[in-house]
């Protein structure tokens, strides 16, 4: 077994304010291997987003170590992260194709190749033919798929997703879960998927990291032994039920 791709060890994050310091993340420790899809689940406001932002280099942290990249898979902080937020965050004055191209422009990647890749990615997320539309002409699910294509345009090694399907209706969400699994298998990226949906976390992840609320502390690091490719049928499987029950218990919901 080679070195893990991401390694967090006893990471702490304190938000300082005049009144009092707020401990947002406390002693979070977990590893993620190259090509893994790991779910992070926990109650709202428990610091899941903070962990993603620390990994993205947007926040400094106050203790512990964060290491991304190993010998076989080196990591460049500015080029190897793709982010997907809860909101699609598309630029409404840009067409879909140009929205997908944004990271490539920022990084100064060659234009012609980037456009080709953008077309390929839009095909992959099922948006062929919408290249010249504006974001407001697309449904919420389609907008979120655009933002997934945008997160992949610069071919990053790590995709950080922060409740990407939280704002979608239940049916679209199920559909997007399947799409994400397909995209993950096709692109072979390492994905960290933050959610507060326990079923979603189990259905997607090869592992589920459970955090308890404020400050975020590790409650569990659960391997999900369900084979890929996963199908909706699995949700009725006995093991699936066992995993979700286990997680509900952790989060005090039994």
């Amino acid at each position, binding site marked *: 077994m080679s070195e893990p791709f991401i390694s967090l060890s006893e990471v702490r994050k304190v938000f300082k304010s005049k009144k009092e310091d707020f401990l947002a993340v406390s002693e979070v420790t977990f590893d993620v291997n190259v090509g893994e899809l790991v779910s992070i689940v926990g109650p709202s406001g428990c610091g899941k987003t903070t962990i993603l932002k620390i990994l993205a280099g947007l926040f400094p942290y106050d203790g512990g170590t964060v290491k991304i990249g190993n010998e076989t898979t080196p990591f460049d*902080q500015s080029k190897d992260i793709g982010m997907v*937020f809860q909101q699609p965050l598309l*630029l*409404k*004055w840009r067409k879909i194709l140009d929205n997908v191209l944004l990271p490539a422009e*920022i990084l100064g990647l060659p234009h012609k190749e980037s456009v080709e890749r953008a077309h390929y990615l839009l095909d992959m997320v099922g948006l062929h033919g919408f290249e010249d539309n*504006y974001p407001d002409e697309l449904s919420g699910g389609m907008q979120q798929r655009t933002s997934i294509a945008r997160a992949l345009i*610069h071919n990053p090694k790590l995709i950080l997703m922060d409740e990407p399907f939280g704002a979608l209706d239940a049916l679209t969400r199920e559909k997007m879960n399947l799409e994400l699994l397909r995209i993950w298998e096709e692109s072979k990226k390492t994905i960290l998927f933050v959610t507060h949906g326990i079923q979603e976390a189990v259905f997607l992840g090869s592992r589920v990291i459970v955090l308890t609320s404020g400050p975020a502390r590790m409650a569990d690091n659960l391997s999900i032994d369900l084979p890929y490719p996963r199908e909706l049928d699995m949700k009725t499987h006995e093991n699936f039920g066992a995993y979700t029950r286990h997680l509900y218990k952790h989060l005090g919901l039994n």
Partner: protein
Amino acid sequence: MTDFSKQIRRYTLIILVHLGVVVFWHLSVVISDIPDYVMPTPVATFLSLQSDYGWWHNTLITGYEVFGGYALAIVVGVTLALICSWFKILETLLMPLMVSLNMIPKVALGPLFIVWFSYGVDSNILIAFSICFLPILLTMERGLKEIDPDLIDLVRVLNASRWQVFTKIQLPGALPYLFSGMKVAVVLAVAGAIVGEFIASEEGLGYLMMQVQVTMETSAMFMAVLLITLIGVVLYGIVLLLENLVVGRTNQVIRN
């Protein structure tokens, strides 16, 4: 085709309403027999163009002051708003002050400007600038604030430079706000330039008005007002055109 004929109808109506006002003006002056020096007819007003008042030169001077002050206000307003968005401490310190400054009747500063910078085209540009720069600064600042911070994080992850964040996210995002401020500022810029000319100057349409007031040539005064208005209309038209070109689609989305 229907869209096109709708446009034609709209513009025909606009022109007809304007012409209607001119006709009404003419008829009411002729019928009520008001003396020419109180209220000239439109015909007399246009005929005053024949008198040698240096119309062309004076219009150009006033136009130059208006456009100059306006352009300066945009550059300074946008730059200052941007700097404030980078350094929050500056925003905290400066913005309340700017709101207070906005309350000063800038027209009242005219005489001071003349004392500080002497009279002439340059001081009039400064007066026009001072009167129209705050609405531009304040709307731009507001527009920059409305941008979702996650959107900035999205490109910050990629190590985007400040300039990239500005040109790709902040400026296009704030443009609809900026344009609304720019439209308000047009009227103010024109007023600023004219006030400067009223107080002290040797050229420009405001100066011309003060000259012909002495000789009671009301028709020339009317003509000067018309030309001043025309300068404002041209500037406003340019801003509208730019707005349509640059953010026409975004505004449509907001309206829908």
